[in-house]
């Protein structure tokens, strides 16, 4: 049936005609996310806003993105005071926002948790998760496929913000998958999800490893910078796998004219999905393609590998970074 990407893409409502899109009772949704200091995060917020605009019965309140958990907690508190119907929350740190999410739930507000998971099952009505670990696994599996005949290959990794748990998950998945074919990460650097930091990290990485066979870069935003650094160095002995799945990288994969041969999607439509789920949950509707009459507790999005072969399928929902 419908993959989550298609469902959340927003540019098509799927082939199934459902009553879900009919206007229902008015739903006020508060949306809070970390600072939009990189393209993927910006895309999350943008997608959420676009999604909300499609529904005449949704009023979306978006607050300043912040990486200060203290401020984010207070934003949620404000939503609670405001008695919104639902809160779509992409916490900077899932555990840190759990208490306030619990408070919101206790106040009868539908909380939809996006991307970074709370540590209490009671803190959210429903959770939309990317699969960070799975993303690493997918990337590692792809690398393994291409390098399985070349033992001793040099695999490098350019991680995102290293202090975030999600980065840890991605790296762990990547390492596990590589282990499966007897490879390991020989050089690892971390950037900050921004173009500039990607360029900086990659420039140094390319010096650290004179010969590389494959690079996995966690984030396509910083990937723009990584590509620039690679171009600068004139190196082309390796292939590169991206992460998150930006439209830029997909176009590059399609044209097959750069180091990117694949990217692993980390759907930037999670925010939009969150909005939809929130609306449905508040209006007591069910999820279209499921038999279940309630909105499910958890939706984990799939992290597929995009290659030249299947890129056309994913390009339309990719985010422009």
């Amino acid at each position: 049936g419908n993959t989550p990407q298609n469902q959340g893409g927003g540019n098509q409502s799927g082939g199934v005609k459902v009553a879900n899109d009919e206007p229902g009772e008015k739903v006020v949704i508060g949306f809070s996310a970390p600072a939009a200091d990189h393209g993927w995060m910006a895309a999350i917020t943008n997608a959420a806003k676009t999604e909300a605009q499609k529904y005449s019965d949704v009023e979306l309140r978006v607050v300043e993105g912040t990486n200060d958990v203290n401020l984010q907690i207070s934003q949620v508190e404000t939503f609670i005071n405001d008695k919104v119907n639902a809160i779509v929350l992409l916490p900077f740190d899932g555990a840190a926002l759990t208490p306030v999410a619990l408070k919101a739930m206790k106040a009868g507000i539908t909380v939809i948790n996006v991307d970074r998971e709370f540590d209490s099952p009671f803190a959210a009505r429903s959770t939309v998760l990317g699969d960070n670990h799975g993303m690493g696994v997918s990337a590692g599996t792809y690398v393994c496929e291409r390098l399985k005949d070349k033992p001793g290959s040099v695999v490098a990794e350019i991680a995102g913000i290293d202090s975030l748990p999600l980065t840890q998950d991605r790296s762990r998945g990547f390492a596990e998958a590589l282990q499966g074919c007897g490879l390991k990460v020989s050089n690892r650097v971390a950037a900050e999800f921004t173009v500039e930091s990607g360029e900086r990290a990659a420039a140094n990485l390319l010096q650290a490893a004179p010969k590389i066979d494959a690079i996995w870069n966690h984030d396509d935003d910083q990937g723009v910078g990584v590509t620039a650094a690679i171009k600068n160095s004139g190196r082309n002995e390796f292939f590169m796998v991206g992460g998150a799945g930006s439209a830029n990288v997909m176009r590059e994969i399609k044209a097959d004219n750069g180091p990117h041969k694949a990217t692993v999607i980390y759907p930037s439509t999670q925010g939009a999905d969150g909005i939809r789920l929130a609306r449905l949950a508040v209006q007591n509707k069910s999820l279209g393609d499921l038999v279940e009459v309630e909105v499910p507790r958890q939706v984990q999005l799939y992290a597929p590998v995009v290659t030249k072969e299947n890129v056309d399928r994913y390009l339309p929902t990719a985010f422009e970074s």
Partner: protein
Amino acid sequence: MSEDTAAVPAQIKAPAAKHSSISALLASPAGRNTGLVVALVLLCLGGVVTAGDRFADVDNVLTILRLAAVIGVVSVGMTFVITGGGIDLSVGAIVALSSVWATTLATQGIANDTHWIVIVFTALVVGGACGLVNGALIAYGRVVAFIATLASLAAARGLAEIISNRKTQIVNVPGFTAFFDASVLGVPVLVVIFAVVAVAGWVLLNRTTFGRRTFAVGGNPEAARLAGIDVRRHTVMLYTLLGLCCGLAAVMLIARTTTGSATHGGLYELDAIAAVVIGGTLLTGGRGTIAGTVFGVLIFTTLSNVFTLNNLSISAQAVAKGAIIVVAVLLQQRLARRSGA
């Protein structure tokens, strides 16, 4: 004029400045903050006009105060350091390190076996120790404060990441959360702590020899030295005090989030310094006001709150924030100048 044994009459007074009652009021301690008060009132008016009851609600006010509490405690400590002629960029990192250290499994284990106060104690000790190191580097190692604390920033965050293994540490000490989640006469404990720290800070700065010496050390270190003040020891004490405030802020943040994490306190240094400076404390030292700092913190947090209530575009908020900061400062200056300050 030398050998003037010549009979010279006694008192010559220069024309005294005329004080109207208004300018007297403006020159009073409360008056010195008129600009800030006006800015805050304008902001609240803005809040009421745009968000009506949603802004003026008691719950909303408490939300603002709870948000202000953590950064407020740090800012009060920062007021001392800046008044004493220093600066500390490592406050955020110290908060993070304290929060992580106080929530390790080991610490929590001890806390569970004995009393939750162990967590508070650990955070304060870690914060105080970091402050002590900063102070010693600056006073005895003679490293410029900016650089010394920049180095501490990097080191403390790194250490916090290593200790926590970059994982968020969840607190499971029932007494701890229960205590800090409580309210005293309807006022959340966190807000009470902030109020106590602010009042204690005011007394310490304005009513004790420690406070007097802080002004002297910041205003004219050479004169302070000649007056017999041990400038270096005092400097160490100032940074240690700020470290303790950071430890306390870490406790409050742990209570608020039920977690310790190496990512806590991000960019607190800028927030705290901004609040202190907008409050009227001189970055060059020698002049500082706790009341101003509290107003500074409230202005920034109220701003966030009003923005949150109003659903403005995020980027537009940033632009507006910049403009509002400038207007607040200009207002404060004009009014302060009028008051003859």
